[in-house]
C-alpha cells in the first residue's frame, strides 16, 4: 500500500494541510462556515401544516483538516444537518459557506460541480451500494458523471482506490453481495474518494458494522485523512468512538447545538446540562469511581412543536426554578413537568366532532379524564400546600378545556427563563468552548453545581 502514497497531487495538498494543522492556526483556516442553518421538513400532505424543525438555527465552523464530531440522540437532527451540508437536503434558511461561497445558493450545473468537493459516507452499507452493479461500476460512477479523463484511466483509478481502502484490485468485477459489511463500507468509502473531495460527512459510518470490524474502518478513515488531508464531519451516537477520532465535538439536541468544544475537554469537564446527561449514560470503565447518574425523564419533544425557550427545558435536570421551589422534591418536580407536557399535547390536539360528543356525554377516552391524569401523577406524592393550590387551579381550567390558561398558571408558578427565552451561547473555557444554557449567565449557579446538588443526594 505504501507505494500508493507517492501519488503526487493528493500528497502535496496533504502536506500543506498537515502544516496548517500543526501550527494550530485556529482562526485562519476555516473551511466550512455554517451560519444560522435551518432545515425544516414541510408537514406532509397538501395543506402544508407545521413543518418539522429538524435543524433549527445552528452555527459553527469546521477547520481544514480536522474531524468535528456531531453527537446526539437519534432524531436530534444530526443526520439532517450532515445531509444538508452536502446539499442532499435543501436548507430552509441560513448559510453554508465553503471557502467563502454559499453552497445553499447553488443549483443546477454549478451544484453538480460543487458536489465534487463535499461527499458523504452513509450509515448502512447494505443500502448505500446498488446490488446490481459491480464494485468497479459503483466506484467508477462519480468519475463517469464528471467525465473524468478516459474510460481506461477511470478504471485504473478505481483499482488504485480499491487498493487504497484495503480491498483488492481483482474485486473490480465482484458484486456487493459477495462482501461482508465492513468490506461493503470500504467500497462506499472508495466511492466517496473518487472525486478527491476535501470535505466528507461520515454519517454514523460504523454503527451498522460488527464491533470487531468497527475499529478497522475507523483506522482506515484516520489513515485516509492523513493521506489525503481530508476534513471530516463525524456523526455518531457512540461516544467512545467520537472521543477516539474527533478533534472537536458538537452536541446536538432537538435541532440545536447545545455545546461545542475540544473533545477531551468536553468529555472530562462538560458544561451544558445536556452534555452532562449524555455523558453520564456511558458506563464508567472503572466501577469504583462514584459517578452521578442523571436519568433523563420522558422523550424529546416533537420537533414539529419545540418548546419556546431552551430546547432542553422539558427534560433538563438543571433547569432554573423559582426560588421558593428550589428545594422541591425531584420526583414531584418531574411529575409537574410531565403534567405540563400532557397539557401541551392536549392543547395541540384538535378535537374532532366525535370527541366533542363524547366529551358532552362525559366520556373522554382519548386523554383520560382530568381526574385520572392528576390521580396518576400526584396520587402517591407528598404535595406541599402552595403547590397543591396551583395544581387545583390548573385542574379547574383543564376541566373547562382551557389548556392555554392552565399552562399559563403553571408557568407563572413553576416557570423560569428556561421556558420563556432561548439561551445564548456562552464561552465556557479558554479554548473557546461554547455552551447553550442560561445557567452560564452571571445571575445563576453553574450547571455542574446544580446537578451535584440535585442529583448527588439521591
Amino acid at each position, binding site marked *: 500500500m505504501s507505494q500508493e502514497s507517492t501519488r503526487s497531487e493528493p500528497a502535496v495538498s496533504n502536506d500543506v494541510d498537515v502544516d496548517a494543522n500543526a501550527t494550530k492556526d485556529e482562526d485562519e483556516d476555516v473551511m466550512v462556515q455554517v451560519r444560522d442553518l435551518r432545515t425544516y421538513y414541510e408537514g406532509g400532505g397538501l395543506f402544508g401544516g407545521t413543518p418539522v424543525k429538524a435543524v433549527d438555527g445552528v452555527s459553527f465552523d469546521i477547520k481544514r483538516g480536522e474531524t468535528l464530531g456531531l453527537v446526539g440522540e437519534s432524531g436530534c437532527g444530526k443526520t439532517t444537518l450532515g445531509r444538508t451540508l452536502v446539499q*442532499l437536503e435543501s436548507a430552509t434558511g441560513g448559510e453554508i459557506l465553503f471557502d467563502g461561497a454559499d453552497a445553499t445558493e447553488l443549483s443546477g450545473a454549478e451544484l453538480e460541480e460543487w458536489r465534487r468537493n463535499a461527499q458523504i459516507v452513509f450509515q448502512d452499507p447494505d443500502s448505500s451500494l446498488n446490488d*446490481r452493479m459491480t464494485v468497479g461500476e459503483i466506484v467508477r460512477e462519480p468519475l463517469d458523471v464528471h467525465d473524468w479523463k478516459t474510460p481506461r484511466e477511470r478504471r*485504473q483509478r478505481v483499482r488504485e482506490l480499491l487498493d487504497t481502502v484495503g480491498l483488492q484490485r481483482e474485486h473490480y468485477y465482484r458484486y456487493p453481495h459477495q462482501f461482508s459489511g465492513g468490506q461493503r463500507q470500504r467500497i462506499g468509502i472508495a466511492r466517496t474518494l473518487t472525486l478527491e473531495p476535501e470535505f466528507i460527512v461520515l454519517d454514523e459510518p460504523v454503527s451498522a458494522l460488527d464491533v470487531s470490524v468497527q475499529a478497522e474502518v475507523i483506522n482506515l478513515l484516520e489513515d485516509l485523512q492523513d493521506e489525503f488531508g481530508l476534513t471530516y464531519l463525524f456523526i455518531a451516537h457512540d461516544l467512545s468512538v467520537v472521543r477516539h477520532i474527533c478533534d472537536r465535538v458538537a452536541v446536538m439536541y432537538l435541532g440545536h447545538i447545545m455545546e461545542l468544544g475540544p473533545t477531551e475537554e468536553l468529555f472530562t469537564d462538560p458544561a451544558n446540562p445536556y452534555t452532562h446527561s449524555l455523558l453520564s449514560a456511558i458506563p464508567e470503565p472503572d466501577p469504583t469511581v462514584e459517578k452521578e447518574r442523571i436519568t433523563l425523564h420522558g422523550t424529546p419533544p416533537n420537533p414539529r412543536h419545540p418548546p419556546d425557550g431552551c430546547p432542553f427545558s422539558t427534560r433538563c435536570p438543571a433547569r432554573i426554578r423559582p426560588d421558593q421551589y428550589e428545594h422541591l422534591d425531584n420526583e414531584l418536580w418531574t411529575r409537574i413537568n410531565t403534567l405540563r407536557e400532557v397539557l401541551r399535547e392536549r392543547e395541540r390536539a384538535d378535537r374532532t366532532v366525535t370527541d366533542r360528543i363524547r366529551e358532552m356525554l362525559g366520556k373522554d377516552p382519548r386523554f383520560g379524564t382530568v381526574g385520572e391524569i392528576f390521580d396518576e401523577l400526584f396520587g402517591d406524592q407528598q404535595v406541599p400546600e402552595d403547590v397543591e393550590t396551583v395544581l387545583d387551579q390548573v385542574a379547574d381550567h383543564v376541566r373547562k378545556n382551557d389548556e392555554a390558561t392552565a399552562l399559563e398558571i403553571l408557568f407563572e408558578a413553576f416557570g423560569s427563563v428556561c421556558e420563556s427565552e432561548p439561551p445564548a451561547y456562552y464561552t465556557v473555557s479558554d479554548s473557546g468552548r461554547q455552551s447553550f444554557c442560561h445557567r452560564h449567565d452571571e445571575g445563576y449557579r453553574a450547571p455542574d453545581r446544580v446537578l451535584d446538588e440535585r442529583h448527588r443526594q439521591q
Partner: protein
Amino acid sequence: MSDSYDEFDDTTLRERIEANPRPALLWALGVLVLLALEIGRVAAGIIRVGESARFALGGIMSIPATIEESVAGTLGAGAGTIAFLLMALVLLVIAAIVVKWLFVPVSLVKRLDIDRGVGTNDVLERALITAVLGVFALLIVATPLGSAVEALIDGVTRGLEAVNSIQPITSRETIPNEGYRTGDGGWEGTFLGLSPAWAWALRVAVVYTYAIVWLVWLWKGYEIFREHYREADWTPRDDSINRLRNHYWGLFGFVVVFLFIVMALWAQPLSPVTAEANLYSPYEHEFQYYDDGSLETITHGTANVQTRSQGGDSNVGLMSYDQYDRFAPFGTNQDGKDMFTFLAYGARVSLVVGVLATGLMAGIATALALMTAYYKGLLDLVTVVVSDSVISMPRFLIVLLLSVLFMQANHPIAAIYDGGILLALIFAGTGWPGLWRAVRGPSLQVAEQEWVDAARSYGQTPAATMRKHMSPYIAGYMLVYASLTLGGVIIGVAALSFLGFGINPPTPEWGRAVDEGRPYVSTASWHIATLPGILVVLVVTGFNALGDGIRDAIDPESETSEGDAGAAATGGGG
C-alpha cells in the same frame, strides 16, 4: 502488488475476444449457418423494417412542409418560410438530443476544449451535434450526395430482394404439401410424393427444429460468454437463471410461450395453405385436383363452399382431407376455410396486438413509476388522480366503446391491421394505471435506498439515476406483471372479437373463431369453437406460468412461501 497489476488490467470485450477468438468464432459460425438457412426470410424482414423506417422518416420530414403550408395559408408566405425553418430546427434539435443520448458517450465540448463553464456546456454540446446534423441534412437535400445516398439504398434494397428469392429451408416451396392424388393412389406435386399430411407434418417439424436449434444456440452463446469472456465470475443474474431453470411451472410456461411465438412468427410455412389463397382472396387463387380420372382446376373460394363444417354431414374434421384432397389438420371452419391456417395467422394477430399493447403499457407505467417515485410531490398526486379515474371506469366497456367509436367513424387508425393497432392503443391507454399501481410500491421502495441519495451526492443526473439505480429493480416486477397483462390483452381481444367488435374479418382472430363456431359446438363441427378456445386458455396460462417463474427467479424470498403464493395465484386466476 505491481506484478499482479497487468494481469488485472482492464480489457474491453473486443480485446478479450481477440485474445481467445476460438469459442466466439465457432459460435458466430453457427449463427451464420442458421441465418443462411433462412436467408430469404431474413432479407424479407430487413426490407420490411427498412420500408417502415423510411415511411416513418418520410412522415416526420414532411412535418415542416405541412406546417409551412398551413402557416403560409393564414399568415402569408414569409411567415410560412419562417415556420418551416423553425420546425426544421426543432426537429434537428430533437434528433440531436436523441443522437447524443444514444451514440455520443463522451463530451465533445471537453474534447474540443471549448469549455464555457458548467451551465452552458450541455447546451453547447447539443448545439454542436445539431449543427453537424443540420449540415448533414443540407448536404443530402441540396447536393448530389442526396441522390448518391438514394442510389445506395436502392442498390442495397435490390440486393436484398435478390437474396429474398433464395428459398429458406422452412419455406413451403422447399417442402410443398399441396398436391393432388392421381388415379393410382400416388401423390403429385407434394414433397417426394409424400401424402400432404406427412409433407405438412414434416414442414412443421422442420420449422420447430429450426427454432429450437436457434434457442439452444443462443443459450450456448450465453454460456460461452459466461465462461470465456465475462470478467465477473458471478453476477446476481446467474442465481436468477439457475432458479428459473429448476422452476418447472415456469418452464412449462416458457415452452408454451415459445411454441406460441414460433407459431406466430412462422405462420406462413406452418399453415397447410397460404392465408392469401385461403382466407383473404380465395377467388383469385386456383388449385388442381384429380376428379374421376381427369385433372380439374378450381378456385379456393369455390372449393371452400363445398367443404364447410356446419355440423351433420357437412363437416371436415380434425386430421382429414376434404373432397379436393386438401389436408386440413384442424378441419375447416363454417366457411370451409382451413382452421389451422386461420389459427396460425390468428396467433400472429394476438401476439402483435398483445405485445404492442403490453409494451406501450409497460413503457408508460415504468416511466411514470420512476418519475413519481423520484420526484414525488405534485407529479405523484396528479398521476394518482389520473390513474384512479382511469381505473374507476369499467375497463372492458371503455375498450368496447372506444373501438366501436373509432371503427364507426372510419378513423384512419382503425384501418391499420384491421383494427389491431387501434385495439392495442386502446388497451394500452386503459391498462397502464394497473401496471403503474403494481410497480409503484417497489419503485417507491427503491427510491428510498441510500444508493439513490449517493448518486445524487456525486451529481448524477435524475434521468441516469432512474435508469441505472432504480429501473433494474423495477424491471423484474415489470416483466412479471407484463407477462400477466399480455395474457389479459389476448383474452380481451378475443372477447371483443367474440362479441363482434375487435379485429374485423377477414383478418383471422381466435375469439372470432370461437364466436362463429359457437352454433356448432354440439354437432360434428365442434372443433371450430373448441380448438381456438383451448388455445386461448393454454397461451394465457403459459404467460401466467412464465410470469410466476420469473417472479420466483428474481425474488428468492418468495420461494420460501411458494405453496401460499401458488395457491394465491391460482385463486386469483380463477
